[in-house]
């Protein structure tokens, strides 16, 4: 799995942002991870603990939000979760082809000091 690589990306983005802010340390990282991103949360947590060691982000609190796959209906604009491979809008029955969430791996925010 590629959680270590993702953890390194996370750290890089976080340290860049902290530097821009003139902050000394990163105290908290808030992530949004889609259920279809292929990322295992516990593996990512472990990898982040590993790669932040000895950096200004060492010991930072990790908040991870798991995001279920969902589509936005092209016909009626309704947002619905994809359950059991059903891509049909529960309101109007139209079939959606595009996921609007569920694949993301985002660093939403951080807390610095």
């Amino acid at each position: 799995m590629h959680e270590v690589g993702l953890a390194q990306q996370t750290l890089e983005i976080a340290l860049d942002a902290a530097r821009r802010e003139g902050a000394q340390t990163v105290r908290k990282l808030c992530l949004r991870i889609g259920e279809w991103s292929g990322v295992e949360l516990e593996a990512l947590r472990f990898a982040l603990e590993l790669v932040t060691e000895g950096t200004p982000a060492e010991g930072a609190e990790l908040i991870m939000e798991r995001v279920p796959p969902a589509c936005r209906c092209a016909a009626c604009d309704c947002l619905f979760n994809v359950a059991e491979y059903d891509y049909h809008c529960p309101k109007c029955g139209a079939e959606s082809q595009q996921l609007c969430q569920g694949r993301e791996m985002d660093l939403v925010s951080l807390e610095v000091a």
Partner: protein
Amino acid sequence: MCDHCGCSAPPPDAAHEHDHSHAHAHGHAHGHTHHHDHDEERRTVALHQSLMAKNNLLAERNRGFFLGRGLLALNLMSSPGSGKTALLERTLCDLRDEFKMATLVGDLATDNDAVRLRKAGSPSVQISTGTVCHLDAHMIQHALEDLGAAQVDLLFIENVGNLVCPAGFDLGEDLRVVVMAVTEGEDKPLKYPSIFHGADVVLINKVDLAEAVEWTSDKAREHVRQAAPHATQLEVSARTGAGLEAWYSLLRERLLAKRAPRTAGHAHSH
């Protein structure tokens, strides 16, 4: 040394702060933070940045490169042993007189596949990923440098055999092709919904073995349709050649479609 992305650049200067982090014991005196509120002020920084941002940027560069060259790039993904390499060998042979083709092949180790594909008469670059379970846009960029200036109509990228991780990495391709073999069972699309949902084309390979493994075509088609309602489904056998004409037609159509707007654009500027 990488000019595009600084990939051999040293990591962020984290180690310098080492002493600070050793003084971590300060953290225990938690109460202190109240006294030092003014110099320990926490603030929230909103980022909303994708961890894939770097990959996505490089993927867009690849996409621009493909567009500039007028070539059609295909990302072939599957579990190990579904017959991606055999399918490509056959395709390279059958379309040899019609198109200039090249392949980039990802594997953890060995260049066996690149050697096989070169024997089929097209340039091939092996990407050895070491322990990495997928190809990313950066690896493609370097492999394209290795491929050199060869003129190419169709570029096949054979991803690392894996039905999980490759789904998350945009390589800049035009078409995502997921290959599954009849020996894998009809419910593969339901077991790996993420990669199947991202597919433009699902190729069911080894249909010559269908009877031996009691493959139920209707059931499989329905499962693919459930997981990837928008995907084109093709049943082929790389060994016997069954169904391959439909695959070749798809390649011809997509290449034409990709090149068409460019031609129109030129006419306009004239």
